[in-house]
């Protein structure tokens, strides 16, 4: 019997809200899927679309971007700017055939440890059901083989 597929998910989170929320989930001893690798950043405004592309390049099956609720940004406006950027970037990814279901966005505050755990479990299940992002990973595999010319 083959092993069930376990997706690799990369989460880019802001340190002031979502990271603190994740921390709360941990200190509250809530269990959530171990499929997520968290990358902590100062603010969602710091999360460049490049990060998402890099995660996919390195074999992620899903990406989560998460930060403070609107109005709660430590830097007052970072998440508003990020929201616009994601709106456009998400449309672009979708237009080039990178499924929207694999790139998730959320607001999670420092108090929402339970929401974080639930969200991670939910996303992990969803992406597990989608299976590995083979179409994209195939591009990387091709690079690693001998030239066909």
């Amino acid at each position: 019997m083959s092993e069930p597929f376990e997706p690799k998910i990369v989460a880019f989170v802001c340190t002031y809200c979502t990271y603190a929320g994740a921390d709360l989930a941990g200190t509250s001893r809530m269990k959530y899927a171990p499929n997520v690798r968290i990358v902590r950043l100062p603010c969602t405004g710091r999360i460049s679309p490049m990060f998402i592309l890099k995660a996919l390049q390195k074999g992620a099956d899903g990406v989560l971007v998460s930060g403070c609720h609107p109005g709660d940004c430590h830097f007052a406006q970072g998440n508003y700017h990020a929201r616009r950027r994601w709106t456009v970037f998400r449309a672009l990814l979708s237009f080039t055939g990178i499924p929207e279901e694999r790139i998730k966005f959320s607001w999670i505050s420092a108090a929402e440890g339970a929401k974080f755990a639930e969200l991670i479990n939910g996303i992990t299940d969803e992406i597990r059901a989608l299976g590995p992002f083979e179409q994209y990973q195939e591009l990387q595999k091709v690079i690693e083989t001998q030239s066909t010319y």
Partner: protein
Amino acid sequence: MTRILLNSRLDDCLSAWRSAGYRVIAPSRSNNLTSFDEVASAADMALDLVLPERTIKDHFFPQTEPLVRYEIKKQQIDTEEMLPPDDKRVFFGVRPCDAAGLDIDDPLFGWDYKDQYWFKRRENSVIVTIACTKADPFCMCTSVNLGPDNPKGSDIMLHPLKDGRGWQMVTLTDRGKALLETVVPMLQEDAAETASLANVPVKFDVEKAMTWLADPANFESHFWKEISQRCIGCGSCTFLCPTCHCFDIQDEGDTYSGIRRKNWDSCSFAMFTMHTSGHNPRNTQSMRWRQRIMHKFNYYRGKFGVNSCSGCGRCTRQCPVDMGITETLQEITNTAK
């Protein structure tokens, strides 16, 4: 009496070549682009083209290719060479300018170190060229002392028959002869008239231009600024050139393992000569365009005795701002004393 290959027997030849272990690569159209691709049958070939948009160079010096796989370990570094495949290949329907491009680049890839990635492919390939019976306004092979039936770089030359039934076949090399052996039953011994060759007007006096270029006084001429003013600094002329051969070596991977690759690079790019210090010895587009022309019509000849241009005209044909070698050498010819 000469050997004739009829259009109707081309598919039989393809089958014969395939059973002899050759892959057949020919001009074709796909995805709104004309290029050299592996074809299944004669119907997939686009032999009506003056020239495909992309060159045959792609199959000898690909835009990106892996050279070596590496892994850095505690005490050692493991490497594994990634040589190109061993497949034998027939290139059918090449134009004389593209074929000449290969010949022009041979000395570059072999003058001190014999580049296996180039020569392995060269040795495994047979170039079957079709002489040109038509040209477009950008063709300029005759201006660089080549022509619509020039044999440079070809193993077999096909001359289209006047009645359009096929081609007269002339073998030029041993590799060509060996390929012909595999299809002898499909050929006819016949006397037939060949179609007249394309009339490609001479557009500039290359000898005169070379003399002008060789004069150090012209290196700093204002001419270079004038002629390259509209150049936007993209690499389309170099990447679509059958003789441009500059490349960059890039390591792709993470800290401890990856693949070293050879990627096309272009003297048109500002980054091409950028130093780590931030100093750029060719910091204006006019210097870069001058470099391209000088390299093709002066430096390359100095080193290898041949100009690095086969007259395909793609540089002008595909230029977003309608520049190219033709205009520059025409201007030089017109102004040179």
